[in-house]
Each structure stands twice: as C-alpha cells, then as structure tokens.
C-alpha cells in the first residue's frame, strides 16, 4: 500500500527558490536596518515574478506537474513540493498582485529620507515578503503539517498589517482576526492529528490512495474544513473580516482581500478533491454551498448599507468569497469524467482569480481616492472623478467583475457557475448567483454615482497622486477585464498534474 | 525495586493532586501559587522516580528543567500587585 514515489523533475529547484526568495528578502530587510527597506523589496518582487513565470512556463511546456523532494527524503517521511496547473496559476496571480501592490505602496511606505529606519515601511515590506513565502508554500506543499506551518506564516504576516496605523479600532480588529485565525489553525491541526493517527502519513498523494470512508476521516476533514472556513471568512465565521480588511492600509487590504483569504480556500480545494474519499459527502457539499449563498446575500446587503468605501469593499469580499463555495455541489453533480473537467470547477477557479485581480484593484483605487480626498465616506465622494479619474475608472472596471457583467473575468466565472447550476438543477444556487450580481451592481453603482457627481463648491484636493500609481491600479483592473475573453469551457491548463496523482 | 519506585511516584502524584485543592480554595494568589510550586517540585520528583525506575536517564533532564524553572512562576507573580486594583502602567514609562 505504499504510495508511488515522487520523482523530482528538471526545474524542481525553482520551487524552493519561490518559497525561500521572499524569506531571504525579509531577513535582509530585518537584519540590515537599511535606510530604505523598500529597495530590497523592489529587488525581490520582480525576481519572484520571473520565478513564478518560469515555473508556469515549465508546467505549460511539459504538460506535467513540476515536483521537488526536499532533502531527497521521500514522503511521507519527508516533504514534497509540487506545482500543478492550479498552483502555478495562483502563484503567478500572487506575484502579479504583489508587484502591483508594491508599486502603489511606494507612495505610502517609503522610508522618510531623514530617518535610518521607520516603523511602518520596515514592518510593511517584511510582512509582505513573509506573506509571499506563506502563499507560495500553501500553493506548493504536499504535506498537511507543512501546510499548517504555512497557514501560521500567513496569520503572523497578515495580522500586524491590519493594525499598522496603531489606532484603537484597528488594534481591536487585528486582535479579533488573530483569535479567529488561531481557532482555525488549531481545528486544522486537530484534523491533521486524527489523520496521522489513522493513516500514518500527512502526504496528500499518500492520503489520497489510503483514504477510507470512516468516522476518523470524516471528523478529521470536517474539523479541518471548519477551521479553514474560519480563516476564509465563510458566513457565519466572517465577522472578523470587514473591520480587519477595512482598517488595514489600502495596500495591505488589497493583499489581504485578494490573496490571503484565498489560501485557506485553496487548501479546502486540496482536501476536498485530493484527499477526501470519493465520492465526497453530498450533504457536506450542499451545506458549504448554502453557507456560500448566505455569505453572498447577507454580506452584499451589508455592503449596500456601509457608509465607508473600504468597509463596503470588505463586505463585498465576503460576498464574493461565497461564490467560491458554490462549486462543491456543482462539481459533484456534474457528469464530467473528472472534477477538473467540469464547468463548475473551472468557473470557481476563474472566480477566484478574477476576484483577486478585481478586488486588489478596487482596494488600491479606494486607497488612492481616499488619499486624494482625505476621507472615504461614500456620501462625500463627489468630485473624485475630477481628481483621480483613472482610479475611479479602475474602480468601475473592477466593479464589472464583481457584478458579473461582460466583458470581465467575473462575468465568465459567474456564467460558468450559473451554467453548472442550471445543468445540475441547483436552482437555489442559480438564483443566488443572479441576485448576488444585482446586489453587487447596486453597491458598485452607488459609489460610481457619487464619484461622478460634480464636485461641491468648497471641494479641495488633499493630495495629488502620481500617475504611475493610478496606472498600476488600472492595469490590475484591465487584467480582470481581459480574463473575460477566455473561452467558455474548462481549460486544460488547470487540469495539468491533477490526473494520475502524484 | 522498579515496582516500589513506580508506586512511590504514584503516591507522590496523589499528594500533589491533593495539594491542588489549595489552588482551588485560594484564597489569595499566593496560596494558589504555592500549589503550583508543589506541582513543580513534586513533578520533578516524580520524573526522577520514573527515570530511575524505567532506566531512561533522559527523563532526569526533564526534572532538571523543571527544577531550573521552578522559581519562575513565583518570580513572574511578584511582578504584579497582590490584591488591589492597581495597574502597573509605570513599568514602561
């Protein structure tokens, strides 16, 4: 019953680089106490993007997963890294979003020239790099305990970003975020302990071969998924997210909303499709979908009622995350030969990617608007269009994705999910997708209406925004739109490495 | 001999357990800390007994660490104020 061995592939060492490179940058910033912390970050960011692209190219060229066995110790004793089509997609997405955020953050997190080292730049750049290491590890690692360590890396990098400004409300939000994240981690770890007790391995491929449909496995997976739900802010465990994501500086919010909450969801995908004994429990799938529906409807309505732009966007994040959880029953009921050839799976992944791009762009745009106007009250956004037109445009383009209007990645994603829902006669899910789109349109247009209005007579611009920052934000939004031109069918690329594990 | 040492360890554990009643009764933090102190020393002794009984000398190291850090809780307790509603805000100003 020993699972097949992993064989390290040609370019496997690049996977190590993808994980370790950000760590090196982080340690360098921390140890050197340089005059300008951001310089090291600007060195690491493009190199990291190139590494991600190189791995993606390798996967695309060979049509197979890239694998590396750390230290040469075969799992389950050792740990393997493995990049399949899905993980490289997310790695490239991460690198792109982080590079864009890095560019935009230059305005807010540069070390003042008169100081050797300042708090917020040093903390911001080290933690962003820490996050990157955590995300790449989440996408690559094949070991459940290693994934736990990665999740902790993610938590420890993300929480201090929330309270970077040190205000009382953000401290409170950070503390609450930390507590939710810790509950999530410990539930996840408990599940891992049960799985180890039952199978003597925490290697994903090994578990896939061994998994039985018994109590221990169900409880373990249930605990792990529940813990990850708390980290991914699925209703009703979403309470921590809006204050945390709204309180963080815009650049950090963009990363938190676009990437950080996706990591636990990615692990749920791994558990559900790669570990759980198939066919998975239909009732659990329905429950996840119902919680997703509740997220979509409840938090969209909450988003409509917010007075602050950033809080509105944060609630919209919870709503959009809800769509991701719709895919479980859709994939199960589909008659495609494998999960990753079904429309629902592709739609879900596409929703993940397009939301990441759109939401990053939206938060960054909101940050620039707030910087220019000096506040982010939706009621008083009049005149934003005249000051930061490009940012408002980016906000609108990103909004297309959230609403699911063409042309946008969100449109294609939601259309695929909708198709899958009607094909499998999940009418409630179809209705929720449509209703969610209408609600999203209402909250996006509410902002755009105010922003396009003529400025009041006493209107004053607080700060001028350099063009490159606005263009970066627009670039992200355009990426989200361009995703709308992909063909409406399952992509072979996302299935690479998923057939015939490992 | 091993049997005797195991039985002693078990009895010592029971005594330590009885001492826990002081942690529950209190009434002052000092009283509760004494119970913790007893668990520390008693636990060290139990570790030594089991180590000798089972021949696993590595367990002596556990007793070593327990003994080394036995006073820590008491030291940390003395950082605070005993009973009154006071705040140690001055420590960092």
């Amino acid at each position, binding site marked *: 019953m020993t699972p097949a061995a992993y064989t390290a592939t040609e370019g496997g060492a690049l996977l190590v680089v993808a994980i370790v490179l950000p760590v090196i940058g982080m340690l360098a910033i921390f140890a050197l106490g340089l005059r300008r912390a951001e310089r090291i970050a600007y060195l690491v960011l493009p190199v990291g993007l190139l590494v991600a692209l190189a791995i993606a190219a390798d996967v695309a060229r060979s049509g197979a997963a890239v694998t590396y066995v750390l230290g040469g110790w075969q799992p389950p004793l050792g740990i393997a890294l493995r990049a399949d089509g899905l993980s490289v997609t997310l790695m490239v997405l991460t690198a792109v979003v982080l590079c864009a955020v890095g560019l935009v953050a230059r305005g807010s997190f540069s070390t003042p020239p008169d100081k050797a080292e300042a708090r917020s730049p040093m903390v911001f750049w080290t933690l962003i790099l820490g996050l990157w290491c955590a995300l790449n590890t989440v996408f690559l690692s094949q070991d459940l305990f290693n994934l736990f360590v990665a999740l902790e890396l993610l938590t420890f990098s993300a929480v201090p970003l929330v309270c970077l400004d040190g205000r009382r409300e953000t401290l409170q939000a950070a503390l609450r975020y930390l507590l939710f994240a810790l509950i999530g981690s410990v539930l996840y770890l408990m599940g891992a302990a049960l799985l180890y007790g039952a199978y003597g391995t925490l290697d994903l491929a090994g578990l896939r071969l061994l998994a039985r449909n018994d109590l221990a496995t169900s409880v373990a997976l249930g605990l792990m998924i529940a813990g990850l739900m708390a980290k991914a802010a699925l209703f009703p465990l979403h309470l921590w997210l809006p204050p945390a994501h709204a309180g963080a500086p815009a650049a950090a919010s963009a990363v938190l909303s676009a990437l950080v909450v996706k990591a636990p969801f990615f692990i749920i995908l791994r558990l559900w499709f790669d570990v759980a004994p198939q066919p998975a429990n239909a009732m659990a799938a329905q429950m996840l979908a119902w919680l997703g529906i509740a997220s979509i409807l409840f938090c969209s309505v909450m988003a409509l009622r917010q007075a602050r732009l950033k809080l509105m966007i944060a609630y919209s994040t919870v709503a959009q995350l809800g769509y991701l959880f719709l895919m479980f029953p859709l994939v199960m009921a589909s008659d495609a030969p494998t999960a990753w050839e079904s429309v629902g799976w592709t739609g879900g992944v596409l929703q993940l990617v397009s939301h990441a791009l759109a939401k990053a762009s939206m938060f960054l745009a909101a940050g620039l608007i707030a910087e220019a106007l000096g506040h982010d009250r939706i009621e008083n956004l009049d005149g934003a269009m005249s000051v930061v037109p490009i940012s408002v445009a980016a906000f609108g383009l990103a909004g297309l994705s959230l609403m699911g209007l063409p042309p946008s990645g969100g449109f294609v994603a939601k259309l695929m999910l909708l198709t899958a829902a009607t094909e499998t006669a999940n009418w409630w899910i179809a209705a929720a997708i449509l209703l969610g789109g209408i609600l999203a349109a209402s909250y996006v247009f509410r902002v755009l209406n105010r922003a396009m209005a003529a400025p009041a007579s006493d209107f004053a611009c607080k700060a001028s925004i350099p063009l490159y920052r606005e263009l970066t934000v627009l670039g992200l939004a355009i990426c989200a739109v361009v995703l709308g031109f992909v063909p409406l069918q399952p992509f072979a690329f996302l299935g690479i490495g998923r057939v015939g594990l490992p | 001999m091993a049997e005797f040492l195991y039985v002693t360890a078990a009895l010592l554990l029971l005594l330590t357990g009885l001492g826990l009643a002081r942690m529950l009764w209190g009434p002052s933090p000092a009283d509760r800390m004494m119970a913790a102190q007893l668990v520390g020393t008693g636990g060290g002794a139990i570790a030594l007994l089991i180590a000798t009984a089972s021949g696993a000398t590595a367990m002596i190291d556990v007793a070593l660490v327990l003994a080394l*850090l036995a006073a820590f809780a008491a030291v940390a307790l003395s950082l605070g104020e005993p009973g009154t509603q006071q705040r140690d805000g001055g420590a*960092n100003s």
Partner: protein
Amino acid sequence: MSLLPDFALMLLILIAAVWTVSARDRRDSVIGFIVVGLLLSLAWIRLNSVDVALTEAAVGGGATGLLLLRACARLGPNETEGVSLKVSLRILTGVLCTVVAVALATIVLYPIEPAPTLAPTAAAHMGEIGLGNPVTVVLLAYRAIDTLLEKVVLVLALIGVWALTPDPLWGGAPGSLRAQHSSGPLTFLAQVLPPVGIVIGVYLIWNGADRPGGTFQGGTVLAAMWLLVMMADLREPPEIRLHTLRRLVVLGPVVFLVAGFAGFWIANGFLSYPPDLAKPIIVLVEAALALSIAVILGMLVAGPAARAPR
C-alpha cells in the same frame, strides 16, 4: 501495570483545566494554566516523548507562564471575568463542545489496528545522518523545511510584536521587566541561577543530537535565564534597533538557509546533507538556531519598544 496513576494524572490535568477556564480572576486562571503545563510535561513522559516533555516543561512551566503573568501584572489584577452569561449561547457552545468531544473520544477508543507509524522508516534512515536522537533527525533532516519555516514564523512574530511600537518610540528599548519593588531574593536568584542555567541550556542543545533535548528546549532555557536577569533589573532589555540584536535574530535562519543551499553543491539538493558531513552541519545549524531562539523568545516576552531610542 495498574492504570491508576495515569488515571489520576488525567483527572488532575482536567481539574486544573476546568479551573483555568472557570476561575473568576484572570491571574488565578494563569496559575491554573501553569499547573496544567507542569502536569502535561509528566503526561509527555508517560507517553515516552521525552523531547516533548522537555519542551512543555520549558515553555508551559516557564515562558508562557511568565508571558501571561506579566500581562496580568500590566492589566491590573482584580477584574472579575465570568464566562459570558447568555444562556442560549452557553448551551449552544456546550452542545458543540460535547459533539466534538464525543467524536474525538470515539476515534480514540476505536483506533486502527495495527497503528500506522513512520517509526520504522524513520529509524531505517537514521544511519545516513549519524545522529542518535530520532526527533532531532526528523526536525533537522527529514522535515527540515517545517523547522526552517517555523523559525521564520518566530521572526515574523517578533516583527508583529515590534509593529505595535508607537511611532516616536521606534528603535527604542522595550519596557523594563523588573518588579516594582526590588527584592533581595530575586537579585540573588538572578545572580546564582543564570550560570547554571546557561550550562544546562548548552547541555540540552549539545545533547539533542543523540539524546532527548535540542535547539528549542535549550534555547528556551537560555531565554528564561536572560529574562530572569532582566526581571531582577541587572540588565535592561536592548534597544530594538541594535544591529547586533537584529543579526542574532536572523543568525539561525540564515545559517539554516546557507546549509540548505549548500546541499545543492555538496549533496543532492536543498536541505540535504552528505552523510559524512551531516552531523557537524546539523550541530552547527542547531547552535545557531538555539541562539536565535533565545534572543527571539526573550524579546517576544519583553514586548514592543516602550522608550524612545537614546
């Protein structure tokens, strides 16, 4: 052998745990938690996991207790904090906890036979490393990436704590740890204990290669000694901008990374060691890690900067 001692230990742990959660005063709760930690280190001995017992004794009995008691001292002692009173919520939570407990208990009571294990595989490859302590081999060879990333977690936690420094104080020293009233016994203890403690810490690190012990246990002991000296006011916590401090913090991870990358040239890949050099490399990495752990743990307990840099 009779189960009575184990049963008694289990009962004591659970009683102390219930007290920890139900105590009205938060300091009483912390004392309860320290007791749980001490009892747990005995439980780990009974589970034949001496390495873990050492860790639990050093962390549960020492570091965490100190951290929490210091927090109590700074929060003010006498606030009554009962469990939240909403009855419906309590019942709901109670039901949830019971369901989880029943499920776990069922799994524990009906284990898989024979129990799956990696012990034979782990033992089979020990010769390739040349170390005698299987746990150290797992931590620094088989699953070295976990350990490496865990050290990164510690560095990030330190950054996270420092991030809470108010802006004008950035670069300064953490608040003093000393007790409000200086006391003779404390000063005496802080003069006598650290030399012994340092020897024991180094012994644990060194010993960890072949027998139970290791970097984290040794590093924690070293940190505890440093904290004791700071509490007795014999030393002030260092300023967080100091380059020496920063370099000590990253020393462990950097040495680990260098050893890892060296594996590309001298062995077959990242974090792999050539058999004849494995032991010296691992001992070197352990020494560096322990030093970093000691510094990081001490600074984590000391907290964010509270004084402007001089």
